[in-house]
């Protein structure tokens, strides 16, 4: 009997160490990656780097154009994807009937979230670039990324709405509220934390995407800042990809410096998302 317990305890401990090992593996890899990037690129981060146009000489080149492009894409993609995604999520969760069609739509949206991003690029190339004639513009790029993150926003919106107890909806209806009033005054405020978190994570995914933008042809040598959604553009990941494919050592350093900038933006966005999630979770306890 006691032998059995001993064996069980050993198994328990074994798994504990195995778990610690797995966790450390991920952290270690991230640490090595960060160290190599920062040690190589950090010293390259100066005002000139942020404020320069592309150049054939690595020491003259900078990320002004792609940094601006990334900002533009972030804003445009948010403007397109957030209203569409949140509204679809609300419709599917609060309004749509729970019938067979609804479950087919649900499975499809979940599947869409897992479609490789390059396939979205092909779709966008056909629809936005060719049929709608938007060319290789910022708008085409932002629409492409919006398509890509729409399923993520829809799914996370629905999850956040689902987390609001049914009793709150009933209480609101029982006082004579319409569906929209219930959604607007009760459900959305109570689920805002979850929705905003999902949206931010989706946006931070969008600004790291490269493949679909390369497919629609955003990989250009541009020397002017975009001034409207119809202008050509480049973004940080594409600039990084571009620099990494050059033979000169200087461009590799530039690329790592640009990676630091991109990572910083992503970390900041994720940080905001985590902060908001914790804050809202503390506020609302059911």
């Amino acid at each position, binding site marked *: 009997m006691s032998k059995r317990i001993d064996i069980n305890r050993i198994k328990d401990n074994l798994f504990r160490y195995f778990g610690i090992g797995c966790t450390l593996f991920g952290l270690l890899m991230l640490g090595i990656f960060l160290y190599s990037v920062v040690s190589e690129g950090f010293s390259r981060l100066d005002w000139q780097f942020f404020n320069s146009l592309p150049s054939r000489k690595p020491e003259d080149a900078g990320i002004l154009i792609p940094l601006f492009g990334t900002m533009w894409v972030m804003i445009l993609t948010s403007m397109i994807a957030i209203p569409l995604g949140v509204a679809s999520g609300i419709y599917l969760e609060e309004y749509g009937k729970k*019938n067979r069609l609804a479950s087919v739509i649900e499975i499809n949206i979940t599947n869409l979230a897992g479609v490789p991003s390059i396939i979205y690029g092909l779709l966008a190339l056909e629809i936005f670039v060719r049929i709608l004639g938007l060319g290789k513009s910022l708008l085409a790029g932002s629409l492409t990324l919006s398509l890509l993150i729409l399923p993520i926003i829809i799914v996370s919106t629905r999850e956040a709405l689902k987390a609001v*107890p049914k*009793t709150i909806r*009933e*209480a609101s209806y029982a*006082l004579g509220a*319409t569906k929209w009033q219930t959604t607007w*005054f*009760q459900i959305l405020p109570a689920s805002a934390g979850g929705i905003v978190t999902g949206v931010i994570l989706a946006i931070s995914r969008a600004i790291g995407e490269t493949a679909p933008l390369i497919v629609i042809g955003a990989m250009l040598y541009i020397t002017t800042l975009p001034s409207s959604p119809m202008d050509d553009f480049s973004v940080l990941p594409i600039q990084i990809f571009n620099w990494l494919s050059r033979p000169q050592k200087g461009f590799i350093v530039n690329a790592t410096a640009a990676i630091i900038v991109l990572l910083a933006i992503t970390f900041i966005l994720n940080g905001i998302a985590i902060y908001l999630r914790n804050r809202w979770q503390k506020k609302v306890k059911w």
Partner: protein
Amino acid sequence: MVKDISKDKLVADKVNVYYDEAHVIKDVSLTIQPNTVTAFIGPSGCGKSTFLRLVNRMNDYIDGFRKTGNILVDGQDIYDKKIRVEELRKNIGMVFQKPNPFPKSIYENVIYGLRIQGINNKSKLNETVERSLRRAAIWDEVKDNLNKSALSLSGGQQQRICIARTLAVEPSIVLMDEPASALDPISTAKIEELIHELKSQYTIIIVTHNMQQAARVSDKVAFFYIGELIEFSETKEIFINPKKELTQNYITGRFG
């Protein structure tokens, strides 16, 4: 004796309810007078909650819900196409089994029903908050903390906030779905006392599993069993001299 139908608050006439194929309310007819407390009793799944939710049409959202027969409130068919369900629910309030205040301040909870009607007049709102909280017998406990989250209160206090919130929209009928089943005995006693006081202004229908509670608070009792209304009469009649054996068995605790 000639019955004056116009005085009836609620009339149900041969009501049947189906959820898809399941026949959950079978041919129920009953009449409720104004300013009375009616208790619905019966074992779980007997249809009493379903019947209660017919009255403010909360079943409308359930997929597969279907009903036949008529329910009249103040002589008006509440399932008529012309009836706006939001208007109906302002007149027929509901208090739920589990206290379900909104995750907002006490003040915001009470005025929610007015806010959604577009009433923003500060003095009117303040007045409504005080009157409703007084009627729900919780004013003295919360009057200094109206901006505190309603979720910070105890279960019994939360339930009285929910009652105040219901009264704020000035309903004429208040439906209560086991309002004290999640509360401790002292809170329960307070709610029961409250029901007594509210009777003078409202018609109350309460679903309860607690026989003593039904005996204490109600004027009439309706006993449901597997979707049928077995017996409906004066509370005293039901408890002292039930006509049906099934009722007798249930109230004496032989099943249920």
